[in-house]
């Protein structure tokens, strides 16, 4: 933000207070380079003022003295501000960079070396893809990137000049490794190394982008390892730029090839049947859940829930559309009647009325067109209803897999599994075992569940409260714990997984997770 240091109206209020309420509060202007001359002029002017001898000339002198005083104060302030600004820019940031460079330098070299070899793999992989697609000429594909190309004397047919340059480069390399090398000589050698790289590139140009990249990176890494002071930072920036280029390239390859492969996998196979659609949804769902849901039953239930939500939304939308369509149809009928009436009037109308009626008819025709657009929503609504039909078909397939007829039976099918253990058919021994487990848990609750209030409930129930959230947990004969949260949802709890009956994502409830962790710890310590 640019701020102009200028006396404003707001300042006048301050001035007013100083002048009329507390005249003694004002202090003399700050000292400056022109202090002496300013003070002299001011004292002369003040002497005249006090003596009542002011005239046109002395007034002018007094005013000029004050103007000069203001200018001197401004100059001093500006110099002080500018000094601060320059100092901050020059010293604060470079000081930080000096600390940063030696820290990141070695890490970059290491990363660069790894990337150099990694880039080879990426390029080779890319070449394989190209070969498979037969979209690139063999000439481009055949040449493998040679990360070691800067090393001397590998292929037999390397021209003598290249060998000589590489020899020179190697010797320079050794010289640069000498830490006592004077900076000027170091700089000259660095420049020569860069020149040699360029000459080598001309004599033996890289055949692929990958090869060029590898050479550039090797060169930059060498430069970084030998550079000192600010040159090191410049070399570091160069390496970082090359690394960014590499990752941008890798990302492009991923975008270009990986999605296509995935698409092939995800593409629906066979005709558009409920079974095929469901199969595709199952795959997509597992992928979305990052493979955590392996149980088909849970997965199918999730799909049913999604279908239900989609169906409800579709139904709501189609209902809304139906209302709008019906309204539009009625409106259209009214408009058509009105139009007919106006057309009838037109025949008997006087000349001046004709234009008015025609205008009205024009408006009505436009309104009818609008209503027609609404009526055209019928197609969209029918599509939604058709979609619902397909969702119903999928649900039927899911129900068949569960071996049931409808949702109610599915619920009944699930609930007994989770509540079976609390049925009165339980033996007294089983009940005692569960009750003992609950008591043990409560006895160790302070250690196992710090920050919660754990009390005994009816029978084997353990009531756990935390931040206003209450869970009723009940140990099961198989070692798992069942729990019911405040909203009445049921949960199965064990050491590593917390599954809500309605198929909600595992591990979602923090308190439930705590209980699971506590249970695991209790088992490890053999508390029960």
């Amino acid at each position, binding site marked *: 933000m640019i701020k102009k240091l200028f006396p404003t109206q707001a300042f006048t209020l301050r001035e007013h207070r100083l002048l009329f309420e507390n005249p003694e509060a*004002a202090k003399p202007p700050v000292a400056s380079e022109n202090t002496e001359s300013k003070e002299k002029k001011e004292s002369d002017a003040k002497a005249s003022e006090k003596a009542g001898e002011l005239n046109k000339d002395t007034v002018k002198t007094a005013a000029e003295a004050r103007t000069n005083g203001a200018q001197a104060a401004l100059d001093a302030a500006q110099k002080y501000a500018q000094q601060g600004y320059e100092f901050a820019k020059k010293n604060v940031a470079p000081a930080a960079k000096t600390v940063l460079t030696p820290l990141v330098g070695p890490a970059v070299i290491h990363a660069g070396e790894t990337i150099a070899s990694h880039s080879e793999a990426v390029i080779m992989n890319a070449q394989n893809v190209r070969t498979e697609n037969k979209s690139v000429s063999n000439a481009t594909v055949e040449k493998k990137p040679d990360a070691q190309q800067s090393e001397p004397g590998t292929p037999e047919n390397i021209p003598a000049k290249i060998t000589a340059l590489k020899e020179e480069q190697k010797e320079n390399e050794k010289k640069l490794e000498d830490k006592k090398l004077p900076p000027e000589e170091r700089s000259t050698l660095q420049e020569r190394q860069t020149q040699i790289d360029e000459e080598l590139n001309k004599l033996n140009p890289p055949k692929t982008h990958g090869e060029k990249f590898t050479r550039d990176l090797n060169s930059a890494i060498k430069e970084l390892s030998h550079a000192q002071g600010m040159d090191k930072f410049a070399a570091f920036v160069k390496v970082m730029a090359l690394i960014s280029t590499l990752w941008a390239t890798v990302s492009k390859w991923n975008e270009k090839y990986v999605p296509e492969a995935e698409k092939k996998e995800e593409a629906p196979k066979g005709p558009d049947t409920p079974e095929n659609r469901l199969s595709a949804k199952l795959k997509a769902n597992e992928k979305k859940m990052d493979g955590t849901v392996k149980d088909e039953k849970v997965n199918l239930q999730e799909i049913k829930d999604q279908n239900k939500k989609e169906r409800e939304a579709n139904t709501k939308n189609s209902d809304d559309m139906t209302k709008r369509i019906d309204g539009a149809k009625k409106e259209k009928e009214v408009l058509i009647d009105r139009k007919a009436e106006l057309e009838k009037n037109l025949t008997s109308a006087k000349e001046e009325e004709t234009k008015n009626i025609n205008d009205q008819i024009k408006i009505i025709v436009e309104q009818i067109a609008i209503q027609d657009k609404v009526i055209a929503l019928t197609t969209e609504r029918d599509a939604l209803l058709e979609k619902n039909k397909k969702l119903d078909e999928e649900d039927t397939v899911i129900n068949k897999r569960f071996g049931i007829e409808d949702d109610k039976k599915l619920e009944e099918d699930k609930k007994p599994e989770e509540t079976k253990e609390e049925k009165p058919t339980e033996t007294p021994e089983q009940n005692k075992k569960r009750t003992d487990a609950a008591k043990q848990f409560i006895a160790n609750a302070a250690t196992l569940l710090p920050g919660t209030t754990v009390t005994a409930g009816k029978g084997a129930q353990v009531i756990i409260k935390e931040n206003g959230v209450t869970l009723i947990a009940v140990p099961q004969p198989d070692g798992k714990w069942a729990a019911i949260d405040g909203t009445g949802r049921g949960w199965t709890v064990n050491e590593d997984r917390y599954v809500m009956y309605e198929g909600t994502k595992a591990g979602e409830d923090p308190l439930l997770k705590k209980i699971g962790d506590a249970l695991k710890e209790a088992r490890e310590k053999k508390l029960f």
Partner: protein
Amino acid sequence: MEPLIFPTGQEVYDALMNSIEPELLSANLDHLDDAYASETEDARRARYERYAAAFAQYDEAFASWTEELNETVRTYRKTAFRSAEAESRTQEEETLSVLEQDIATIQTPSPAA
């Protein structure tokens, strides 16, 4: 962090004097008596006494403004340092972040590759 813009000494003088005695604005100094060609000697003396009082008021106003100016400049310097430090820190963090990301995503090629 933008540099401060400073007015000139004359601008400051006029700005302060404008609310004290407009007749003493720098543009009027050469024509102070022009409008008072027929004034009496007493009236002239009274006018110049008014000018003297105006200068006294100006000095007080100027002292106060100078205080404010110095405070603004001090604040500006502090802000400049903070801004430079923050900028430097951001650059460092960005650099380190890029480096960390790159290192984290590096995969050593398998021998088969």
